[in-house]
């Protein structure tokens, strides 16, 4: 025989840890906007004029849902292009594919690919790559890729619209049950103007749009 069980719980009430003072000292507003404008000048939007005036090749990069950042071309080593952002993130691109990252919480340290060129016939074979990561370290993760053309589209870039070929790359690592789809928008000269790439299982997708193409 159980006794009468009375239980009272108060759940999910939003309360305030402090006395609400949010309405103390009201009434300052538009009158001081002029002072604000005199002192402030910051604007987080990336100005197209700013990009246009930079004498280097540049691109806009967004990692996952983060803010858009401007990256400029830092150097060229053979067919590898190194891009750098103001906060010290490096991306190394080869044929438009990200082959190395630095400055991110988790980084693609290196990758060894089968010989790869957009100009060759990509679409009837499986490519194999070995990816190594840092933080945490993992070496030589086998990843296979299959490419597929998916039509031509008018794509809005930073300064213009271009009609570009969309190529999708299905990547898969059976070892860790990781599969994703990367996208490349390529012009007739096999230059990748825009791309979305998954470079590590521990990183969100990296999106980039080239603003000024390297010479």
């Amino acid at each position, binding site marked *: 025989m*159980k006794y009468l069980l*009375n239980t009272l719980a108060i759940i999910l009430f939003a*309360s305030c840890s402090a006395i609400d003072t949010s309405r103390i000292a009201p009434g300052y507003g538009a009158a001081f906007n002029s002072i604000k404008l005199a002192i402030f000048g910051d604007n987080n939007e990336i100005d197209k004029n700013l990009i246009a005036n930079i004498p280097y090749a540049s691109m806009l990069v967004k990692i996952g849902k983060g803010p858009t950042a401007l990256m400029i071309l830092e150097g060229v080593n053979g067919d590898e292009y190194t891009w750098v952002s103001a906060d010290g993130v490096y991306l190394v691109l080869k044929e438009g594919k990200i082959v190395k990252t630095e400055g991110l919480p988790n980084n693609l340290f290196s990758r060894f690919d089968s010989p790869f060129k957009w100009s060759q016939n990509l679409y009837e074979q499986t490519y194999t790559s070995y990816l190594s990561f840092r933080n945490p370290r993992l070496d030589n993760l086998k990843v296979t890729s299959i490419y597929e053309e998916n039509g031509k589209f008018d794509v809005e870039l930073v300064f213009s619209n271009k009609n570009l070929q969309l190529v999708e790359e299905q990547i898969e690592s059976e070892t860790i049950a990781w599969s994703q789809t990367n996208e490349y928008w390529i012009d007739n000269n096999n230059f990748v103007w825009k791309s979305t790439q998954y470079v590590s299982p521990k990183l969100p997708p990296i999106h980039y749009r080239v603003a000024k193409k390297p010479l």
Partner: protein
Amino acid sequence: MLKNKLLLTGVCLLASYASKASIDDYYPYKVLPSASNYGNTGILEMPNARMMQEGQLRWNFSASYPNEFTTLTASPFNWLEATYRYTEIKNEKYGPSGYSGNQTLKDKGFDIKALIKKETYYFPAIALGLRDIAGSGDFSSEYLVGTKKYGKLDLTLGLGWGVLGTDNNIGNPLKSIREGFGTRNDTSDLGGSFTVKNWFSGKTALFGGIEYDIPKRGLRLKMEYDTSNPDFYEKVSKVHSRFNVGVDYSWSENLNITTAFERGSQFRVSFKLTGNFLNDSIPKPKPKKVAKLNKQQQENVKNNKGIFYTSLNLNLRQEGILIQGAELRDDEVDVAIATGRFFSATRPVGRTARMTAALAPDEVKKINIYHMNGDLEVAKFSIGRDYFERADNNKLSSAELLELSTIESPNEDALYSRAEFQPTVTFPEFNWSMSPGLNHQIGGPEGFYLGQLFWKTDFTFKFRRNLLLYSSLGFNIYDTFDDFANPSQSSIPKVRSDIQEYLSEGKNNIQRIQLEYFSQPFKDVFTRFDLGYLEPMFGGVGGEVLWRPFEKNYSLGFSLHKVKQRDYDQLFSFRDYQTTTGHLGIYYDFPYQIRSQLLIGKYLAGDKGATIDLSRRFQSGFSLGIFASKTNLSAEEFGEGSFDKGFYFSIPTQLFYADFSTGIISFGLHPLTKDGAAKLQQHNTLISIVGDQNRDSMIRDWDNLLK
């Protein structure tokens, strides 16, 4: 050549080992030890020595026949788990049908499990646990268990007593210490007491289990040798197999689903929802940066301080920080601030220092910031401008900045009342807020869950600084309280046990209307006076005084109220019962952010005694606490439960959002609503306003100054 081959083989082996050793981090699922059927970390029916991570809460619903478990487990430390559990026993009735209809039996229980030795390379982790303590004891068990990991295998071996010892496959080894360990007595009829003399006594059994992780698929396979037989009501056919098997799937980091086949005849499905509140993992807006004044602007500011005050005020308002007073002197600036945006005091202080450093003339070398909570100044920060700027540019560490700064208790003459710049505030000031709210009655005979959804509307009129009228109204949206049919049988004044009448007759109610006045008559001494409907069940007049020495980790308080019981409808009338209640409060902060409160005094029903409250606060602001009271009532007078006890937790809402917030989601549970040890539920207690505003708290949150 052979040497080279050997070398190459060695390098390959090493590389393969390195690769294997780290691949766990890259699997799509993070497979971790998961909950047992009983809520705490374990295999299925059997426990293991694995523990939840620190600062977690886990809700577990585990359904089978005849036992269905709904549990809440918390981990105040990485070595301690505490579980509160409701068990539905489906093959037993709650009581006679005239009393509780067709409702099945519900049993409450409380478990505790402690890691007593961490796992090492050679030795297993060892844990000691108590199951169903201070309840009816139907599942009462004790265990000592070890778990060792071998690759993806987790092997468990343990010794169980009580229900876990039902298999009786080994003699009780403790009998060699004392013969009394050989027998186990029935538990107390009243429940709620700790039957310590039964612990580790009676039948004993050796149990074990194997768990295997498949992180590629997010699975943890489980198999165990089950030594329990909780189908003690003998309405279930006998146990067909001592081996239980199951599989746990990590749907996400927060959600696990387990299916199991137990005792050769029963299927079980469990859902486990886990939240980790140790740290705030959602990025918040960074401090706003402003350009430093140029020479011409500095000259303008020196000639007209109003420009400084107004620009500082405007910029801080955009950060949700409100200046309450400011004074620009030759080489120092004083600023008093209040905020309704930031949970941590040091964060708005840092943002104010940054803004002040940018907007003040170069001659200013020191920034003094008075942090206010409500209208009380609770801490004064004095920061060297140059040091702050260097720290802000990563040229000085946060610890070095702390060393070079001072944090002290402000004097009783508040800056806002004497500063050169005092923002114009028009009184009376009016604030309001609204939110949905829930009332529950869980585990009663009329139904396991009866509840109410209501709309809570709060109004605050501030007549002058520190004097305000606070009211809170509740408007019913939907409820199931009409089913109540069990009036209180309490033999002492029914100060809480008439809860059913309060809930059913006061669906639309005035929860509080009270006048509050705060003051700080002396340095570190705070007072509060209140008058009105002080809580849903009592109204009256009273107050409190709190001495909180800023430099110390203790406080002392005293509260006293003359109160009269409100009518069940919680509108304007009163019942006959009245009393005087009050407590002496001793508050002490232990290391590891463990807080204690000891309240000694007279409770609402006139009983006298003490309440102890222990809680752990985490860096994120998440708190877990337990409390217990013992008064001069006998266990029989108190009734079921024997003495008052319960637990609570609170989670800052900012842990769920991408912006800062001072809001808190609170959950508190008294397993039984009893009249003994009932305290007045006061609003805006001084300890809640200034208790976490001492020097240690500021140092604890110091890193937020630069974030």
